[in-house]
């Protein structure tokens, strides 16, 4: 099978402006992935499926990953000019100082695709795509027209992560009931207060019990027993 670099070159030759980026995977599994631009993803998908050499006709796995907004603290080396007295003579020297810079990296939702070829019996080729953020710009193109196996898996990602797949023929919740409002697999999902009395609460259970007590304090008829 071709290496990721070769696949990247092949894609860029076939779909101009595809903007494919290699995401290295440091684990021993060595399954490096290719990040696609959502705008060209469907064209790339058709190319990967129909190309003679690749023939990736089987989309095995499609899933979502949630990346929260995070604060990144980086150590940067900065060169500064400092005036120092060396041997009684004043001199200007360059000194390298370490500074910590902080910035917020906006979170995003990511989808991951594992492709195999049934005709050529090779794989996996891993693709990824990112949404712009986690709140309002969560659209990604659907690959269901290319690989039908994405149909339920995209619905699942929509249900649990809230990625909206444009071009999906029937985008509804898959696992939770239709009235449900949240996206429970997101990492900041908070479960509804579903308190259960435990005689010896500890750790997370204790934290929940405290939250619950605070939530129902002052309400009448909520005999919490605590």
């Amino acid at each position, binding site marked *: 099978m071709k290496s990721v670099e070769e696949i990247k070159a092949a894609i860029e030759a076939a779909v101009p402006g595809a903007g494919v980026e290699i995401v290295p995977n440091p684990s021993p599994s060595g399954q490096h992935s290719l990040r696609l631009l959502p705008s060209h993803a469907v064209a790339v998908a058709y190319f990967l499926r129909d190309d003679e050499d690749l023939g990736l006709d089987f989309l095995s796995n499609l899933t979502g990953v949630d990346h929260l907004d995070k604060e990144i603290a980086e150590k940067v080396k900065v060169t500064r000019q400092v005036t120092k007295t060396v041997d009684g003579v004043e001199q200007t020297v360059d000194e390298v100082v370490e500074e910590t810079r902080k910035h917020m990296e906006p979170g995003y939702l990511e989808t991951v695709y594992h492709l195999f070829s049934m005709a050529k019996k090779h794989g996996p080729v891993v693709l990824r795509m990112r949404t712009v953020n986690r709140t309002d710009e969560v659209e990604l193109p659907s690959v269901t027209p290319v690989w039908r196996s994405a149909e339920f898996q995209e619905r699942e990602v929509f249900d649990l992560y809230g990625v909206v797949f444009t071009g999906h023929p029937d985008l509804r919740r898959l*696992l*939770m*009931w239709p*009235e*449900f*409002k*949240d996206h*429970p697999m997101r990492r900041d*999902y908070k*479960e*509804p207060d*579903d308190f*259960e*009395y435990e005689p010896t609460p500890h750790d997370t259970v204790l934290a929940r019990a405290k939250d619950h007590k605070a939530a129902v304090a002052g309400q009448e008829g*909520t*005999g*919490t*027993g*605590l």
Partner: protein
Amino acid sequence: MEEGLKIELGKQGVFVTTIEELYNWGRKNSVWPMQFGLACCAIEMIATTMARYDLARFGAEVFRPSPRQADLMIISGTVTKKMAPQVVRLYNQMAEPRYVIAMGACAISGGPFKQGYNVLKGIDRYIPVDVHIPGCPPRPEALLQAFMTLQKKIEEQPLTGEGRPRHLDAEAQGEFPVPVQGEHDLEPTSNKLVWPLPVVIR
């Protein structure tokens, strides 16, 4: 009547019994369960009905697919929040006298999946349960034991007064409210009549 006299009469070919005993004897030996499998425990329930464990010995081999024809609901597996309204609805559709066995850790309390966002933490939040079987999954022998416990319970039920079966009690609650699937959770999260919150007195 004295036990000794009864045996003595029995030797003479005269059998004496009470209506209550006869009635309960008939009931307890023809408990028909509902064919209702939810998760892993259902496989063990099926294994119990098969040749090796042979549930038929207890008069309960007839699994009815319809709740109207069943006396016993074996809740064999995880009840999710999406499924809970249906379970309560099925229970409501069963005719009295009806019994419930909660089979496995999941049906009792949510079991290994208790922390899941879609898992109901025990079916006794919505309907009354007669026998609980711990285990994950309980072995078929445990289900047989639960059956025997249930039969004993049926046998000991008086037909009048306190503790009589619900079909002989005009006032008994027959319909259990079906929870509604809300925007974040089931509403209400439990039926306070069958699952009152514990009150700790200090």
